[in-house]
């Protein structure tokens, strides 16, 4: 069972061995509304936690997507460049943003699990 962790900035990160897939949460896509554009990093770029890794733009505004953990970008989801609405339709699945080679898998332990994230989101209201 792959481990999925969450950030306070509403990104998710799912570990797959030495790699991890990153996206924005369903709550984030709901708050953004219609996603009309995404900008993804180049392959090979090193990202750091809390630093911009991608950009997502809704009909209203542009937002940064932060890297939840350190790593090197090994893949990006070209499908959401052609069809940004996939981020709204399936934020936790087909709407993924990028795949990292983890610098240190232990960094995931510092992030929220699903129960903690759900409680965090509930507090936002």
């Amino acid at each position, binding site marked *: 069972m792959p481990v999925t962790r969450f950030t306070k900035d509403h990104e998710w990160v799912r570990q797959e061995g030495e790699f991890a897939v990153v996206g924005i949460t369903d709550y984030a896509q709901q708050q953004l509304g219609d996603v009309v554009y995404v900008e993804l990093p180049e392959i090979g770029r090193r990202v750091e936690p809390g630093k911009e890794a991608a950009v997502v*733009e809704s009909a209203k505004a542009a937002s940064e997507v932060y890297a939840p953990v350190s790593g090197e970008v090994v893949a990006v989801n070209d499908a959401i460049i052609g069809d940004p609405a996939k981020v709204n339709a399936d934020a936790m699945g087909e709407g993924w943003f990028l795949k990292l080679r983890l610098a240190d898998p232990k960094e995931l332990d510092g992030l929220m699990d699903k129960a903690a994230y759900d409680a965090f989101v509930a507090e936002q209201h």
Partner: protein
Amino acid sequence: MSGSAEAAPLRHTPLYDLHRSLGARLVAFAGYEMPVQYPSGIIAEHLHTRAKAGLFDVSHMGQIRLHGAGAAHAMEGLVPGDLQGLMPRHMRYTLLLNEAGGILDDLIATRVEDGVMLVVNAARKEADLAHITAHLDRAVAVEPRFERALLALQGPLAAAVLARLAGGVAKGVEQMAFMSAARATIAGAPCWVSRSGYTGEDGFELSMEAADAGGVAEALLREPEVAPIGLGARDTLRLEAGLCLYGHDIDETTTPVEAGLAWTIARNRRAAADFPGAATILRQLAERPSRKRVGIRPDGRAPAREGTPILDPAGNPVGRVTSGGFGPSVGAPVAMGYVDAAHATAGNALALVVRDVPRPAHVAPLPFVATRYYRPHP
């Protein structure tokens, strides 16, 4: 994604409870808590309005009634439009100007038998009221009607929907010409109906007592063609239609000539040169302004938002975006902004600096989407 703290408590329009019951996401706008979108979202709401009929609550806008036979003449002292030449129950888009020719607000003025009615921007209504009251002759009584409700029904099916519900208009609301107005009864409520709007589509604006607004809105929403539309789609619709948003595309630092609104300066008013800022504006008309508002199409997919720097292809700064985003009917990003006159020709190549990267774009004709105002054949 954190909400900003507001100093003053936000005001509500008469439709606030209805917005909440419809699941609207409410945001602060011009001192009001207003629906930015409903659950269907901005793109679906935008496309619905272009295909069928959208209902907008614009009760936050300011309605002002000028009483007196001399009202049109007096008001001409503040705007460059020909108001005295308007037939009763006909309306005109015009501009409140300062002495430098800068734009204090844009508004719609409607001539009525015993005066003039104005609809002004929400964020400007108190300032406009003070300005108008201070400058008009005492023979003209200025009556703010800020408590009245204003709804907009916009889209190609708006006329058919309204005809079903409206009574009291001699030839029927569907025969009213664009920029004309009439009294009507809608769902039992007395309304002032004008064929106008802010979407580029055919449509109507309905002014009524606050107490009647809920009933009229609910009656309209019961019609199968009608969906509620928030301010988010109102903004994308007006941007595609090439219409200015006050405080963004026009303000006190822009003149009507720079803004591409010279068509609002009536021929007889140019000859008389008797409107505020006439010297500056007439000189710009004769000599061409140094900068112009233009439409801009980014060549790529990245939207360029308000404030985006505009460069020429050599990398020299030539202007700034004043409105921009994704155009749902265009299916691509669209923007408006001011550029130096030498770069203002349609097709001219530009670059837009989004997140520090210059991205190719070009000047495009406005509107981005053909307008469909109703002009009956005589």
